[in-house]
């Protein structure tokens, strides 16, 4: 699509934005996989519609405020990128555009306050743990609060598992095959600390030594993906300093964090840190992709009666990082599960970072739709690779009256090794 975006005057991130717009041919192949087009059914809420609106705004043809409601509706799931035959890098358009919009937009005080609350709480494990405890007390009043605040409270877990601090190094068992550094994450550490421990155990069993740099912090994805680039940068800088260069890979086990770290290069485009940031991005890998590439050294013993498991593709793993087959291969190798495929795999579950807080109604529709698709497979356990999806899917399965465990891929593997995988356990 032709455009007249004044690239030179819009800063270093204008070029990637203009390139994405230029490579869109408006064919519409993205429409059936876009969660907002599928649920809302209007062109402005489709990927190519948004691309056109962003083009118009950047060209100065359309007021930013006029386009923003539709840009804000985007979940950032990047399903459109998977579906796109002409190679539009939508992620490199929406993230910088949101940062651009944040600088120029007006937000009302309530909106600002909620945004601050989320961005100052979720990425900090201690604050989030405290908020989760306090929030439970406030839950009876959720109905009295504005919809999005109420949905924040409803998302908080019933119980917060005790903190399980991670060691600085978790050694490999047997001969060492690789050495990696782990991003410990923030909200995930509070909600499901077992995911990190399962990751460490499975890596160790396969000959991988894991270091957990103490100086690391939040990856910044939450801020980055909601337009708060300036808030994301200090977080990213901290990780640039914290993660060592002498490891085979930097491992993430939350899809959103992984895709965030893989965007550091874009975040610092045109700045002194750009090269270092790009190097860290290039070394960052989801744990499932890393393990699949390395190959499991030891296979769990095959269970006599494999459990039907539906693997739910987290958008930030499948679409943003292009990782779909690795977790499936690992699950199949576990010998304990029989994979079943849900319909509409490409459709977001509605979690999408902080989306279920900002747009609870759409998030709810998508969550319920996802839960129904998963249930239709007859699965007795759901595996996925992102803490946000786990919370969302669990909640919507429960709302439909199904208490099916939802586990991280690595938790399934970990339990398969231990011989403790079954369908009655509660998600941890």
């Amino acid at each position: 699509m032709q455009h007249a975006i004044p690239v030179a005057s819009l800063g270093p991130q204008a070029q990637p934005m203009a390139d994405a717009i230029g490579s869109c041919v408006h064919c519409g192949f993205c429409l059936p996989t876009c969660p907002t087009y599928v649920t809302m059914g209007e062109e402005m809420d489709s990927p190519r519609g948004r691309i056109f609106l962003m083009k118009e705004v950047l060209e100065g043809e359309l007021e930013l405020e006029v386009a923003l409601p539709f840009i804000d509706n985007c979940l950032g799931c990047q399903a459109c990128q998977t579906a796109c035959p002409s190679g539009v890098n939508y992620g490199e358009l929406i993230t910088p555009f949101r940062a651009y919009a944040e600088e120029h937009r007006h937000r009302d005080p309530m909106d600002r306050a909620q945004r601050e609350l989320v961005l100052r709480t979720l990425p900090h494990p201690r604050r989030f743990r405290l908020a989760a405890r306090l929030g439970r007390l406030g839950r009876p009043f959720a109905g009295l609060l504005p919809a999005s605040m109420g949905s924040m409270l409803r998302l908080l877990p019933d119980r917060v598992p005790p903190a399980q601090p991670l060691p600085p190094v978790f050694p490999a068992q047997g001969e060492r095959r690789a050495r990696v550094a782990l991003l410990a994450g923030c909200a995930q550490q509070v909600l499901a600390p077992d995911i990190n421990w399962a990751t460490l155990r499975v890596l160790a069993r396969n000959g991988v030594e894991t270091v957990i740099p103490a100086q690391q912090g939040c990856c910044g994805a939450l801020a980055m993906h909601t337009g708060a680039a300036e808030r994301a940068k200090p977080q990213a800088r901290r990780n640039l300093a914290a993660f060592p260069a002498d490891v085979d890979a930097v491992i993430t086990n939350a899809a959103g964090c992984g895709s965030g770290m893989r965007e550091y290069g874009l975040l610092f485009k045109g700045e002194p840190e750009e090269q270092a940031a790009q190097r860290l991005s290039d070394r960052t890998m989801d744990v499932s992709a890393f393990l699949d590439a390395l190959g499991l050294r030891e296979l769990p013993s095959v269970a006599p009666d494999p459990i039907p498991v539906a693997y739910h593709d987290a958008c930030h793993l499948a679409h943003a990082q292009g990782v779909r087959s690795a977790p499936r291969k690992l699950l199949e190798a576990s010998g304990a599960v029989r994979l079943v495929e849900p319909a509409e795999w490409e459709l977001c579950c509605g979690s999408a970072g902080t989306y279920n807080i900002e747009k609870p109604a759409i998030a709810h529709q998508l969550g319920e739709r996802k839960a129904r698709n998963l249930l239709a497979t007859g699965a007795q356990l759901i595996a996925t690779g992102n803490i946000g999806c786990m919370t969302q899917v669990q909640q919507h399965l429960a709302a439909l009256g199904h208490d099916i465990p939802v586990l991280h891929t690595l938790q399934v593997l970990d339990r398969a090794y231990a011989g403790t995988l079954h369908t009655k356990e509660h998600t941890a």
Partner: protein
Amino acid sequence: MHDMEERVIGALAQLELGDRLLTSPAAMASFGSDALTAFHQRPLAVVLAESVDDVVRAVRICHRERVPFVARGSGTSLSGGSLPVEGGIVIALNRLNRVLSVDPDARTATVQPGVINLDVSRAAASHGLAYAPDPSSQSICSIGGNVAFNSGGAHCLKHGMTSNHVIGMTVVLPDGELVTLGSDSTEPAGPDWVGMFCGSEGLFGIAVEVTLRLVPVPEAVRTSLAVYDSLQAAGDAVAQIVSAGLLPVAMEIMDALAIEAAEASVKPNYPSGAALLIVELEGEREVVDGDAARLDELLRASGASETTATEDPDARGLIWKGRKSAFSAVGWLAPDYIVQDGVVPRTRLGEALAEIDRMSAEAGIRVANVFHAGDGNLHPLILFDGREPGAVERAEHLAGEILRLCVSLGGSITGEHGIGVEKRAYLSLMFSPDDLALMGDVRRSIDPLELANRGKMLVPETVS
């Protein structure tokens, strides 16, 4: 004019559509183009229809106020078929997306116009049935648009185009009258109104319910790939296959540039060469096996340097995904392209391809070729960079020359994408002024005010 716009919006507001009546600048901007972005026109308003009644009432207002209207499904026309008209309204049908019924005994499905092509086959799959016409955009294009443009697709070689699969429909005429065309009988008496409506590019009104013929899902499907060292050799092979009496369900050719684009995009792992021929056989097991043996022999005799064949559904799916993504995938090769849709008699395919190749070299403009070879339906993709001065004009000139070539070889300027706004100027290559005047008369006999999709295919006589 301004008063008029206010009056129309006021009248539409009385339909009490709430947020289904769109007038905001952002909405008008995003509905301004379909899949042909060379044209852009913001409409006055968009009505998101959710019922037949919505369509009828919106059309009646347009008729009363003499405002042109354009029906739009998924907005995937490659000829500007759903381009809005200045000062007109768009009636969006994408929310009318229910498959109303599937009758496995009669092998029919009745659907709303916004149903996505592929969803018809999905709805029929449990009965072992499918909807045959398969435009490359079948994952998103809607039945209403398929009917309006008599869409084809790779598998129409054996099964025929959309018009061969529509047996009846309910239509909102340009004055808002609701009529039923066709019947459940496959051999009706009287004029073929359904046939006349199919491919009329929306000039006779809006189909709001369509009854489609379904076909049994074949017992066996086998897809062959054959590589040739020239497009002409591949084209000649197609003619040989047909004259040997085989009727494959699809025969497609892609040239080296189209293969390169597909590999950059969906990575189908095609064997590389100057030309790739895809041949698909389907039917009963024994028939496919028998035909396959003859086909393999023919491909070898025709000089193919490499042939492979598969019946694996995933492998076949990937072959077709590569082929069907080819238009959009050339976005990897050049910033802009024009896709043409000319047709030549199958026997002159090789000749046409050689000539296009010569024209491309002479103009110094890259042309990727991907086409329904069995139908002689060419899709030359003319690649250019619109930022270079004069590039658009040069590309358009070459596109026009290719259409002239098709007509001079005894073919046509469009196989399946339609005339739309894009090829209107070329209609006179095929039709005399008298022919065109007659078409205009026929159009105005049903739509005297020329409100329905004004300006598509025919130059309007009335300008209000």
